[in-house]
């Protein structure tokens, strides 16, 4: 390993200078989010079904991450995704990951870890909207031998980990963030998660470890759409009160309207500008008495993982979907008439996106 020598208690993350926001872009979160919804609708129709509500709930979160939060270099991967080149192994020098779509690796650049990979189509659509993938990249979506898979894996565009067994990516992102801190890198690790992943015990083990190891160079955006395969999460297995639970685990938690890009970006920008916990930060309860000597001092606000709980609407921008509530996880057309209604929506997209 070529890590730099370690300093105990090194705080690479808090030591970084205030950095500029990502280069100004003519693209707005709103326009990109509308484009995501339209593309995902189009390919859900072409594919005869799919994960459409995920586009509705997460479009602004992902667009905000790429446009306003993460510091990523330009894509270094081909506009038309490469075909599947075999699984990683000693004997396969051709295996690759889709991380190149998020730019090169560099000390000062951020990394993006995409955890709920059944949202893959949303990410592909976003990459197209941003010009990181070509407009025709989705021709290969869910076709045999393609990396543009229905459920993404590490070879899929924009993906870095094989995360489809949900609730496993955060721990790996924690390892990556720890490694970056050990190497003295200033870039951060951003993880996008679904709320269903907060049912897996591993997610909580990860938060315990993030807090314990004071991993502050990692931020998590959660699409809290309150939906999962079996229906509303409150019926299946509630995770609430999520913010309180996460705070109890030592994270800096913000709860925001997940369709409001200002609100989504604010907590991350506050961290980036070095203003620490920023608004909405909730320090752990500190008792009046001094901490007992055997306990470590409270971590600095910037040594805690940052969590943004984005409260979202799984039908946002596609009102037609509400007819399917409360089961929204996977759209499978029940009747030709229903499919026609969605076709119609796509044809007249201009109107619907401007509602």
């Amino acid at each position, binding site marked *: 390993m070529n890590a730099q020598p370690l300093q105990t208690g090194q705080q690479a993350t808090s030591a970084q200078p205030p950095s500029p926001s990502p280069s100004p872009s003519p693209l707005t979160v709103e326009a990109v989010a509308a484009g995501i919804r339209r593309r995902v609708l189009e390919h859900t129709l072409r594919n005869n079904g799919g994960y459409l509500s995920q586009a509705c709930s997460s479009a602004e979160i992902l667009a905000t991450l790429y446009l306003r939060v993460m510091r990523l270099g330009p894509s270094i991967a081909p506009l038309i995704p490469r075909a599947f080149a075999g699984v990683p192994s000693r004997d396969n020098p051709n295996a690759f990951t889709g991380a190149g779509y998020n730019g090169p690796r560099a000390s000062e650049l951020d990394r993006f870890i995409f955890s709920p990979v059944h949202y893959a189509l949303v990410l592909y659509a976003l990459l197209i909207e941003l010009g990181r993938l070509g407009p025709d990249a989705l021709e290969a979506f869910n076709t045999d031998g393609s990396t543009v898979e229905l*459920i993404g894996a590490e070879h899929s565009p924009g993906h870095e980990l*094989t995360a*489809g067994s949900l609730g496993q990516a955060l721990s790996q992102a924690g390892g990556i963030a720890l490694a970056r801190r050990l190497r003295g890198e200033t870039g951060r690790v951003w993880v996008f998660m679904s709320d269903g992943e907060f049912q897996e*015990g591993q997610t909580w083990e990860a938060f315990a470890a993030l807090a314990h190891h004071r991993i502050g160079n990692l931020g998590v955006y959660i699409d809290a759409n309150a939906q999962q*395969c079996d229906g509303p999460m409150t019926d299946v297995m509630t995770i609430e009160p999520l913010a309180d639970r996460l705070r109890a685990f030592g994270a800096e938690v913000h709860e925001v309207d997940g369709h409001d890009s200002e609100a989504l970006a604010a907590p991350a920008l506050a961290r980036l500008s070095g203003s620490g916990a920023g608004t909405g930060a909730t320090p752990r309860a500190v008792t009046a008495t001094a901490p007992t000597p055997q306990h470590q001092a409270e971590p600095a606000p910037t040594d805690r993982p940052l969590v943004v709980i984005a409260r979202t609407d799984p039908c946002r921008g596609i009102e037609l979907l509400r007819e399917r509530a409360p089961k929204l996880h996977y759209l499978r057309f029940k009747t030709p008439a229903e499919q026609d209604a969605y076709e119609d929506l796509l044809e007249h997209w201009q109107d619907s996106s401007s509602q």
Partner: protein
Amino acid sequence: MKARSQPTEERQVESGRAPRQSMLQAFRQDHHMIELVTRPHRSNLIRFAAEHPDLLVLGADLTASCEADGFRDQYPERFFSFGMAEQNMLGFAAGLAREGFFPYIHTFSVFITRRPFDQLAMSIAYPNLPVRMIGFLPGITTPGGVTHQAIDDIALLRAVPNMTILEAGDATEVESVLAVAQTIDGPVYVRQLRGEVPRLFPADQPLRLGQARHLGQGTDLAIISAGICTEEAINAVAALRSRGVSVSHLHVSTLKPFDDPQLLEQIAKARHGAISIENHSIIGGLGSAIAEQLAEQGIGKRLIRLGLRDTYAHGASKPYLMREYGLDAAALIRAAETLIGESLQIDDIALAKIAANIRTEAQGETLAKADKTEDL
């Protein structure tokens, strides 16, 4: 040709090479058109539960995807949702089983055998509790990619003491496997099929514990298949017979315990050896189980194991993956040629014709559509 058996009635004695037409004839002699059954597990579970009031169903947010939604709606007081938290669900199942209930866990095979493996081993298997783990999307029967493909479940669970492993190969077995599981005093793992499932075996011939189905007699080769590979093997056997190869074909649905004497008897009689084919890694599954028995009994026959060759797979359609990883009829023909030591001149077109005779074109389309639209 000298290496072959005496001609059978299917064989074209003079040339040893049958035109395609007679390949189909040979096939038709043995098989009727195969019926497709829609979601046999869904209806069977409801039926079965009516007779077993202490049966509970536990789900981990894949209830409809595992065809347990009908049960849930019919018996809401016997259905328990655990969310996406499989390790915990297996623990709850263990507790319920210790108290005399029969928990039927429903989720995808990978989320029973990989994620909560230690809970499965220590909470359920060690105390020999009667938890029934109904695993869906075994092997590569999912376009969900590597994270959804249980290619090592049999290997993992064969190594678990007290475990019984069953695998459904058609609608009849899907409908009868629960009754078999319920007779077992201990944990049972079922590789179950969902969606449109072909009926290969008569509805009145249920799955029997520890008994392979002997689908055809022969003395040149023995083919042992399980799960979805059996339909492929049926196609391949028809093609091989039309070329005068005498094939014994066995379908296995009990993978542990693995002690049906028929298997070794048939392999011992097969002059050129045996081929196993399974929707799983060749390490630790059906082929390995056969190899262990052959070695222990000192039966000196060659065995070609077809299955995933120590590799992970990726997301694609089932037919594509079956071809890519050699789990199809064509792979069986190649293996047969290797054992026999000569080319049989059976091309893809001929095989496709046979397959099309099992399933009409219309069925093929329905399936393709269903494959694409099924929940993951």
